[in-house]
């Protein structure tokens, strides 16, 4: 509700300013459709969509960005329709589930609207569906973690906590295996922690019982790292050298910034990528630069040196 009001207020303000600048500034309306904040990562998406929208509107007086959040694919399809009837020049969408939304997106695209899809691609992902695709890099998230472990501790015995048995999790695992290829890094075990703190705590506790010596934990997710650290702390085990998580939550980035021994690095899978798509869409209209195509965001390794660039203390995530 707060967001809705904020959005409405922003629209009103923009309507006023755009009248004032009608002569000098091109008028562009962009609709942003994203999933509702139902867990850490999506709450970051909502935060960054609103942050970047505000930033861009202050830079371009003629620009109007409408941010809509939806809890499930069906209501997101409705939200896309609503945005379309309001008359938008571009749609930036992070689909909660891409395939059921393809038709709604195609409908918008068919009217000549610029479409940018973020993060989750439908099975047919070509220029009939969208103009721009901004993607996070799941294989690279695993590979970056694997390469870091290979470089730092070449003979490490690693336990892995996976997310849920879905394709992106598998891509991360395959990437990790590629990352440690040709080294002595040994994977002791892989179990599912469901991207959930409590489940990760349990899995880690059991790993600690099962293996008398563990060098490194790769849990690929900042939320799960919270449970992992607590389990290690409780068992008072000193053999674990460090934990590699991922995503880029403020808590873990903070630990990296502060030089925490257990969290020396984090691997980025940033919810801020929705902002990247928004910036590029705006550049298409105001900068008249070519942006159509696929833009894949690196799974950047966050270290003590660059952590401050990725730290958002005000974000819920």
């Amino acid at each position: 509700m707060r967001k809705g009001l904020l959005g409405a207020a922003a629209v009103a303000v923009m309507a006023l300013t755009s009248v004032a600048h009608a002569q000098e500034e091109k008028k562009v309306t962009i609709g942003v459709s994203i999933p509702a904040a139902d867990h850490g990562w999506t709450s970051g998406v909502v935060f960054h969509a609103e942050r970047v929208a505000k930033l861009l509107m202050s830079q371009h007086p003629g620009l109007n960005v409408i941010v809509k959040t939806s809890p499930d694919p069906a209501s997101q399809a409705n939200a896309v329709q609503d945005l379309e009837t309001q008359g938008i020049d571009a749609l930036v969408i992070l689909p909660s589930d891409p395939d059921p939304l393809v038709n709604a997106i195609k409908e918008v695209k068919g009217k000549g609207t610029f479409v940018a899809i973020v993060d989750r691609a439908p099975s047919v992902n070509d220029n009939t569906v969208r103009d721009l695709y901004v993607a996070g890099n799941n294989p690279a998230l695993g590979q970056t973690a694997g390469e870091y472990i290979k470089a730092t501790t070449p003979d490490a015995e690693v336990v892995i906590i996976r997310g849920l048995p879905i394709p992106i999790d598998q891509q991360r695992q395959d990437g990790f295996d590629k990352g440690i290829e040709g080294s002595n890094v040994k994977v002791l075990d892989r179990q599912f922690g469901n991207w959930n703190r409590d489940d990760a705590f349990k899995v880690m506790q059991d790993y600690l019982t099962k293996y008398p010596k563990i060098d490194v934990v790769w849990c690929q997710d900042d939320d799960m790292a919270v449970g992992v650290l607590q389990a290690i702390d409780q068992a008072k085990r000193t053999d674990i050298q460090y934990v590699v998580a991922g995503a880029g939550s403020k808590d873990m980035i903070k630990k990296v910034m502060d030089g925490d021994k257990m969290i020396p690095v984090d691997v980025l899978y940033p919810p801020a990528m929705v902002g990247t798509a928004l910036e590029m869409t705006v550049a298409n209209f105001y900068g008249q630069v070519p942006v159509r195509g696929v833009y894949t965001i690196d799974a950047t390794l966050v270290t003590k040196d660059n952590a401050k660039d990725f730290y958002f203390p005000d974000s819920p995530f």
Partner: protein
Amino acid sequence: MDTSVNEETRDVRRRSWRDIDLRAVAPFAALILLLILGALVNPNFIGLNNLANVATRSAFIAIIAIGATFVISSGDLDLSVGAMVAFVASLMILFMNSGVIADPALMLTAAVLFAVVAGSLCGLANGLITTVGRIEPFIATLGTMGIYRGLTTWLSQGGAITLKDPALQEIYRPAYFGSILGVPVPIVVILAVTCVAAFILYRTRYGRHVVAVGSNADVARYSGIPVNRVRTIAFVIQGLCVAIAVLLYVPRLGSTSATTGILWELQAITAVVVGGTALKGGAGRVWGTICGAFILELVGNIMLLSNFISEYLIGAIQGTIIIVAMLVQRSLVRKS
């Protein structure tokens, strides 16, 4: 099964070992089978450390399931407990973060009371909607499940709610990680809660009323039992148990998120049923429930400690073990 018969079998059981109530013993037989299986799978399993870990982390589900034993015995069902855990825990952390009381120890005491009151009120809401509103408990608590979960998501804006004050964290931490005479605090809490619950269910008039209402609400009403009051109080007991679980949950990770306690209601109901309480109401077995919660946690633990089970098959094997455990119980009961 009716109350007096239940009471009788219990009396008989005390008098002679030959007449042990197999239905009450069955969950423990299943537990012993699992312990043997676990020891075969991995020698570390039977270690005191591992078993203490498993018992400790079964505390949340066990304590919630004790409350669920009352609700289910009285013929109702509460689906909102998982969401209630998340909601009460979030409120408690927000209360502690608000810093209205400067002294950490005093603040913690106030927060504990706050959580207990919040949990009881959530339970009372469930009870009143079900009894005064005359809505099927399945639907009523499905509704409140959405409400508690939604409010939690709103409070956290989808992210996490984390306990900020390090001094508070420090004094609160032993509530989960500490131990009394070498026994982890959560296990002591489970035993204490179970003793109180067993006393209420087996030794007080209210306990007999719960079972009577669950066996046949109409007969209970004609015998002058205030059916709605009995049912509502059962929901309040459930809320209270959720609050106690929260008191142990918060010091563990010091934070909650929108995914806290997801599907815990199903685990609690499974623990109750595995423990020998009939889902249709009319009989409650508090000690069986604790055993059921422990069995559920053990199954996951054994899977993880084994080296030969694919991580993709864990769900399927957990389901199989639960059904086998139930079949073992059933066969024991038939022999009696």
